[in-house]
Every structure is written in C-alpha cells, then in structure tokens.
C-alpha cells in the first residue's frame, strides 16, 4: 500500500479503513446505528451523493471539474416533476428521460464551450452554477405553487421510497454476487490459461468469499423488517439504480476505448493526441456522461424530497466532488474509479447519519465532513508530489 501511495495511487484501503472506523465509532456511541432500519436509511441517504459523485468522476478524470452538477441535476429533476404534474400530465415514461436529457444537454453545452472555446471548466461550470440556479428558481416559481412542487407520480416517488419485494431482493443479491464471482474466477482462469501472471489463488478465494459475505449480509439487512407500525421489507429501488449506474460506468471506464481515452487524457492529453485519438471528442463525451449520471441523480433527489422547491441545494455540488475525492479520485485528473464515489458517498452519509443519531448539529456535520475532505485531498496531493519527485 505504501508503495502504491508513493506512486501517486493511494488506493481505496485507507478510505475503507476510515469508513470502518467511523462506523465503529458511531456504533459504540449509539447501538441503533447498525440496526437494519438505520442502515437502509443510510444507504438511501448515500445514493444521491454516490450518483452525483459518479457524475463528477467523469470530468475529474480529465482534470476538469463541474461546479454546477448539484444545481443542474435538480433542474433536471424539477423538469420531470413538472412534466408528471397533473397540469401537464406527461407519462413518467417520457418525463423521467426528459429530466435526464435536460442535464445531459447542459453537460454537452459545457463540454462544447470547454473543448471548442478552450475556456476552463472551472469558470464555465461556475457560470452555469449561477445561471442555472436562476433558471431553477424561475422554473419552480413559475408554476404558481408557492415555491414548492410536490411529486404527483407514483413511479417518481417510488424511486427512493419504493422497495423490491424480499424475494426479489434475495434474487438480485444472489444473481449479482454470482455474476461478480463468475467474472473474478473467469478472469483468473483466462489469465492462467494464457500463461499470464495471475494473483495468488488464495487472494482470488478471499475476494470471492468476501463478495458472497457482503452480498448475503446486505440482502439480510434489506430483508429485515424495519417498519414500526407496518411491515417494511425489501431493497429500496434507489439501491439497484445506483448499482446499475456503477456497473455501466465501471464497464465504460475499464472495458471500452472511450473509458481508456478519458483516463489517458487526464494523464497526458498530448500523448493521447499524438496516438491519433481525437481528444476533444472524448473530452466532450465525458461532460455528456456527467450530465447523464447527474440527471439520474437529480431524479433520485426530487424523489427523496418528494418534490422540488425554489431553494436551490447549493451544497450538493460540493458533496458530489467530496464523495469522488474522499473515495480516492484525483482532483488533478487521470485517476478515478466509479467505486470511489460509492465509498466516498457512504462516508459522507455515515457522518450525516451518525451525527444525527448522536444529536449533533449541522455545524459539527459540516466541520467533520470538511476535515475528512481535506484529509483525502492532502493524501492525494502528497502522493502525487512523491510520485513526481521519484
């Protein structure tokens, strides 16, 4: 781990250890922390941070940034809420993609300005943050509902508050774990049969056992009744949505040319250009992918709030960046994985959730989250400096 840290790749181990320490601390202070009800609540709270963190990772990989994803994603969610409102009565089937499309188009617009006009993404998205904040207020206020538009559609509401049945929860967990184990074993067998260097067999077995254990524990948590007055069991829909985005995003990043180039551009864009790759095309694509992922995050956000209001969530963007960076994605480009947003998002949600359980105020939550973010960025900076001076 120390060697990887010196190479500028701190990996995820320190972050996961940090998460476990936080969990241990909160559990010691409040025994309800690890109850299934609270854990499911924590996972749902984390879904927004995770999705927006994953959205941010696409541009962070390039060495760019999107300072407006918190606003634009909610704007997309607001469009979906307005379209399904009885006033317009558009089917959710069209309204939800329309909400995602809005954020995607904004991402494409940013990408065009950054790529074609060579304006720093920091400035472009800062301008977008201000402008789209105004648009969001205008859109919400113009509905004449007093600055708040509630969700009047069951599918949109159920994105966060609906649950899979316990049976489907188990099926999803078992199938998901089986596919992942199959991929790990198949990859190892392919490498062995090709005569390539492989990980020790014990390491592969440990990975498989850990996967099975985590899958079964999660399924058990989601399967437990967490209702007080009614029976409430099953995995919230938000979780498979997050997992789906994670799987697709990871596939694009690790198994496609586009993902390879987005990674490479963040490392040395001139080298990529000289390799004959149309760099600007992939820079634009990364901004579009940020939009798509952010759009999905925006739908979950309005679902979680059960509506949208004209008080824009100004800190949402910062949490998105924090989730990515705390998880291990570099602010300087060239290093990041979708799973980083998952771990980072879980850490932020754990701080929120745990401190609320301990009746600590918002002031403490902000301070602690800030310290964790600073620690993550410092580790990244130090690792990079060590790497550069080797």
């Amino acid at each position, binding site marked *: 781990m120390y060697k990887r840290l010196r190479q500028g790749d701190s990996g995820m181990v320190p972050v996961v250890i940090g998460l476990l320490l936080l969990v241990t601390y909160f559990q010691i202070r409040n025994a309800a922390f690890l109850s299934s009800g609270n854990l499911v609540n924590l996972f749902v709270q984390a879904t927004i941070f995770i999705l927006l963190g994953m959205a941010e990772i696409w541009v962070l990989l390039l060495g760019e940034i999107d300072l407006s994803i918190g606003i634009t994603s909610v704007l997309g969610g607001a469009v979906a809420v307005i379209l399904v409102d009885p006033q317009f009565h558009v089917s959710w089937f069209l309204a939800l993609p329309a909400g995602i499309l809005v954020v995607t188009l904004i991402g494409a617009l940013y990408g065009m300005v950054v790529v074609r006009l060579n304006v720093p993404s920091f400035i472009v998205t800062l301008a977008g943050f201000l402008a789209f904040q105004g648009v969001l207020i205008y859109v919400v206020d113009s509905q004449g509902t007093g600055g708040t538009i509630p969700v009047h559609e069951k599918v949109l509401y159920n994105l966060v508050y609906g649950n899979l049945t316990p049976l489907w929860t188990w099926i999803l967990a078992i199938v998901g774990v089986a596919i992942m184990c199959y991929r790990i074993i198949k990859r190892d067998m392919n490498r062995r049969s090709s005569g390539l260097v492989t990980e020790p067999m014990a390491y592969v077995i440990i990975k498989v056992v850990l996967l099975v254990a985590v899958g079964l524990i999660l399924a058990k948590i989601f399967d437990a009744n967490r209702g007080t007055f009614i029976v409430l069991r099953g995995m919230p829909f938000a979780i498979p949505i997050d997992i789906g985005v994670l799987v697709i995003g990871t596939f694009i990043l690790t198994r496609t040319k586009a993902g*390879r180039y987005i990674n*490479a551009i963040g490392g040395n864009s001139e080298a990529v250009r000289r390799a004959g790759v149309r760099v600007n095309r992939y820079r634009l694509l990364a901004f579009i992918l940020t939009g798509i992922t952010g759009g999905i995050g925006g739908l979950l956000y309005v679902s979680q709030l059960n509506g949208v209001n004209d008080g824009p969530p100004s800190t949402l963007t910062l949490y998105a960046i924090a989730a990515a960076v705390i998880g291990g994605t570099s602010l300087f480009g060239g290093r990041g994985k979708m799973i980083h947003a998952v771990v980072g998002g879980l850490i932020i949600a754990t701080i929120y959730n745990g401190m609320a359980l301990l009746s600590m105020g918002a002031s403490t939550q902000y301070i602690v989250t800030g310290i964790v973010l600073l620690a993550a960025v410092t580790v990244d900076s130090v690792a990079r400096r060590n790497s550069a001076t080797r």
Partner: protein
Amino acid sequence: MDTTPESPNLTASSRGPSEQSGSGVASSSVPLLSLRGVSKNFGPVQAIQGVNLDVPDGQVTALIGDNGAGKSVLIKTISGIWPPSEGKIIWKGEEVHDHSPRTATALGIATVYQDLALCDNLDIVQNMYLGREETKFGALDEIKMELATNQLLKDLSVSTVKSVRQLVASLSGGQRQAIAVARAVMRDSRLVILDEPTAALGVSQTRQVLELIRTLSSRGIAVLVISHNLNDVFSVADRIAVMHLGSLVSNGPISDYDTNSAVELITTGQSSRVPTTLAPSS
C-alpha cells in the same frame, strides 16, 4: 473514433533517389527514405534549406548538429507534423504527397520524441496500445494485448521490466525510453526516429537504449537517431548526417568520420577531413 491511418498518397518519383543523390550515398538499392531539396520556412525564418538525405533500410543513421541546427525541424518534417515548404519526400522510391502525421504512420514512420508521449497513469500495455486497442465483442481484449506486449518486449530483449501491468509512472528513464521505442516498433514501423533517446539517462540506462537501437536495426528497421552525445553516435550508428545552420553539410558511412571531424562539422559546418555536401552559409 477513427484511428485508421489514411492511405499514403504516393506517386512514382520522376527521378530515382539513387540517381539524384547529392548525399554521397553509394547504395545500390533504393533507400527507404530520401529527402530531396527539402526546405522549411516559418514565415521569413528559414529553418532548414535544401536538405538531401538518404536513410537506408536496416541501418542506424545518426543526425547530429548544434542546438538550432534544424535537426528537430527536419524530423518533424519527416514525421509529417510540418509539411516541407519545398522539396520532395520519397518513400521506397515513390514521392509522398500531402505528407501528414497520419500518412507518415501509414508509411511506417514512427517518431519517439524526447518527452516520450507516455501516460504515467496507464500501465505499459495500455500505453503500448494507446490509440489502437484490440477489442473483442466491443470490449477491450486485455489478454491479447498483454500477451502481445510480453512477446514484443521479449523480442526486443527488454528484460528490465518486472511486469507489463506496472504503471509507467513507476518506470526508470531507460525503461520508459524502451517502452516508447517498443510502442513505435509495434506499429509495424519501417523507420523509427528517436529524438535524443539517451538524454538525461544514466550510464546503464544509456547502454540499454543503445542495445535496443542495435536490436531494431538487426530486425531490418531503419533508425534515425538525433543525439548530442558523440560517444553514443559512434557506438551505435552505421551512418552519420551533420546539420549546421539549417543545412545538411555532410553525411556518409560512420567509418568516414571521427570525433574531431564530427565536432568540426557541428561547430563550423566544414571539415578538412571529410567531404561536405554543401558550402555552409555564412
């Protein structure tokens, strides 16, 4: 993404390069690359003028000269980055039109610049295949690329790399140079141009790179190497070409030169010991 190089635009040269050679090359076969009267202007600035040069197959040609002599402009012209203002680029006896980086790549010209153009955040395999990745059912075929990379490094006797899955950031200067050269070779290159390959390398790393250059030429690949280090030049080159103030003032077999004559040519553009191709400009 389109990384397929365009077909190079070739027409038979009206004059065979061996017939018109003003470079003193006494090769009976057609050189791999010939430059005839190649000049390059940047506005009023004449960077190189009237360069005649033959680069034969399977030999190492060293391009030497002082700073500002025009070496880098010449290799960038050969690489298609800057089209020549005047003159002809002839590849295997056929004139090349509309010379660009893509046509250069299609012809089999690969250039390894001083900065090596490697991505530190990618591993060796990923760098080797950057821009020309192998895919299977639309997904990257990592095993195929890794096997081919292992084989190529073995063929080139690059044995200092522990694993091809190492990040390039973790490699030494010599290893990085070897990877950049191997990448150039992997692209079915017929001519590999190396810009100062041993600059900033230690003694053992320099030795590794020079061995690699010899391996390339033994595989029938032409190498054009820019170097300021005359020890390196005399230990690895078959031919030498000297530039002075934008002109190619002398070139020929390495046996015609010694260190003193090379230094004379580099600093003054002329030497009493070897023939020059041009009177140096004042």
